């Protein structure tokens, strides 16, 4: 982690408002998270439900407010942005969600779905945009004639490729992946992980890969961050975390099921 940081999170605290006037202050969902994601690197964030990983992710995406702390995106105070500035700055982050059938509108064609972010940033429709969409699809391993289809006509893997293409439409430098393979079969998961690795290489992307499956993310991340009950219990280079986990919990996750063939 010697290069410049694309995302810098400092002492981030997220707390959901307790209901009722005299309710005690609730335990924070994220209790002071700090980490840095360097350019062209992949950081895996691992945790189970209730670990705070989803809250952390949603706060970074500005979907929920934070109590305190800072998030800097390419050096800029990301939490200070508001209104249209925020909306237009969102193009720097591409997002892929877990279930493509839910994250792609059932009513729109693939072409409409992929043109949406482009139109939102003021690009004009027409043949040039169609060409761009075809190129995006091809980058994600899909033929151009998918444009007129709808998500439900695609297989899970194909639909997830469309979701990745949408995330790439505005050429973001940072990709945030929220359990991108958890809803897919193992053989398809392998295809998607390969695709993500290729895209990272060809487009110089940085990635934040959030998942409950340590083994999946350990495969392609440069560093790993393990969360439990709002705390970061482990943060370090992937090789090191896998070889010498410091926390029992990490050990537990690593020892489940098949013991990897990895050295």
């Amino acid at each position, binding site marked *: 982690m010697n290069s410049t940081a694309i995302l810098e999170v400092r002492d981030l605290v997220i707390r959901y408002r307790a209901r009722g006037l005299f309710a005690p202050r609730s335990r924070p969902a994220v209790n002071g998270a700090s980490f840095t994601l360097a350019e062209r690197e992949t950081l895996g964030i691992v945790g189970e439900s209730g670990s705070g990983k989803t809250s952390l992710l949603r706060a970074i*995406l500005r*979907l929920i407010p934070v109590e305190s702390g800072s998030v800097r995106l390419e050096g800029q105070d990301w939490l200070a942005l508001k209104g*249209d500035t925020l*909306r*237009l700055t*969102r*193009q720097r*982050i591409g*997002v892929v*969600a*877990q*279930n493509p059938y*839910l*994250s*792609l*509108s*059932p*009513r*729109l064609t693939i072409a409409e779905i992929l043109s*949406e*972010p482009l*139109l*939102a*940033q003021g690009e004009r429709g027409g043949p040039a945009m169609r060409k761009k969409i075809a190129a995006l699809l091809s980058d994600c391993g899909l033929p151009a004639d998918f444009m007129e289809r709808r998500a439900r006509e695609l297989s899970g893997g194909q639909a997830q490729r469309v*979701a990745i293409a*949408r995330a790439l*439409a*505005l050429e973001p430098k940072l990709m945030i992946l929220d359990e991108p393979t958890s809803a897919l079969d193992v053989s398809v998961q392998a295809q998607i992980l390969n695709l993500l690795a290729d895209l990272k290489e060809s487009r110089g992307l940085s990635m934040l890969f959030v998942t409950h499956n340590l083994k999946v993310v350990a495969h392609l991340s440069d560093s790993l961050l393990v969360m439990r009950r709002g705390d970061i219990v482990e943060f370090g280079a992937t090789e090191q975390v896998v070889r010498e986990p410091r926390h029992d919990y990490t050990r537990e996750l690593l020892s489940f099921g098949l013991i990897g063939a990895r050295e």
Partner: protein
Amino acid sequence: MTRLVHRLGWPGTIAFGVVLVFVLLAVLAPWIAPYPGQGAGAPNVAAKLLPPSADYWLGTDHLGRDVLSRVIYGARVSMTNGILIVLFALLIGLPIGLAAGYFGGWIDEALMRGTDVFLAFPALLLAVLMAAALGPGFLNSIIAVAVTWWPWYARLARAEVLVLRGQPYVEAARLAGVSHPRIIIRHILPATGRPLTVQAALDVGPALLTAAALSFLGLGILPPTADWGQMVDAGRKFFPARWWYSAMPGLTIFIVALAFSILGDALRDRKGGANRASA
């Protein structure tokens, strides 16, 4: 036709047919009614209060007008009434519900508390008060009923939006930088279309009944224009001896209201094409 039966089922298809027939009657009244002049209101005192016969299939009223012609002409007013009330109510309720549900927070609080005020009154009472305040007349009676109606659409739209707002594909649009108005129009509105069209179809019947009730109370459309509710009221004085005068328009109201209600149910249960309603 077979596709219609497949999508709506037999009861729905029949109800759809009934509604269609009444729409046609309303549109083509001057050509279909046996006595167009009487349907429009011209008296024919020579033939006062005759029972149903070959000349007057549904009998005549106290001014000797053919009840069948009056019922057919009444379809123009009553059907328009029912449909316009629902449309007006949608026009007010839908934007309010969309805004309340989508933006949440104080906007939601303000809009929904305002909505609750309207719901606090019994609907018919509110309609009567409104109609009395506005004075009788076609448009006024529609407005009077629509005012009691829209809060339901606001609530329904809001409930739908609350679910949709959290849908990953709506969130994905937000994260792609799509603006709020565009998200509402492109993602939220189409998806609320289906439940709202169902509710609207179900409501045409009751709206028509309420409008008929206002006419019955003399707060709706003024004679000589034919209106089913007002006909029932006028015929009441001659009931039961001259039963056909109020029974025929009454039965018509019943059939049409029932048809809309069955059609609404069929639309709700219809098979396939989730995006059809929004297309």
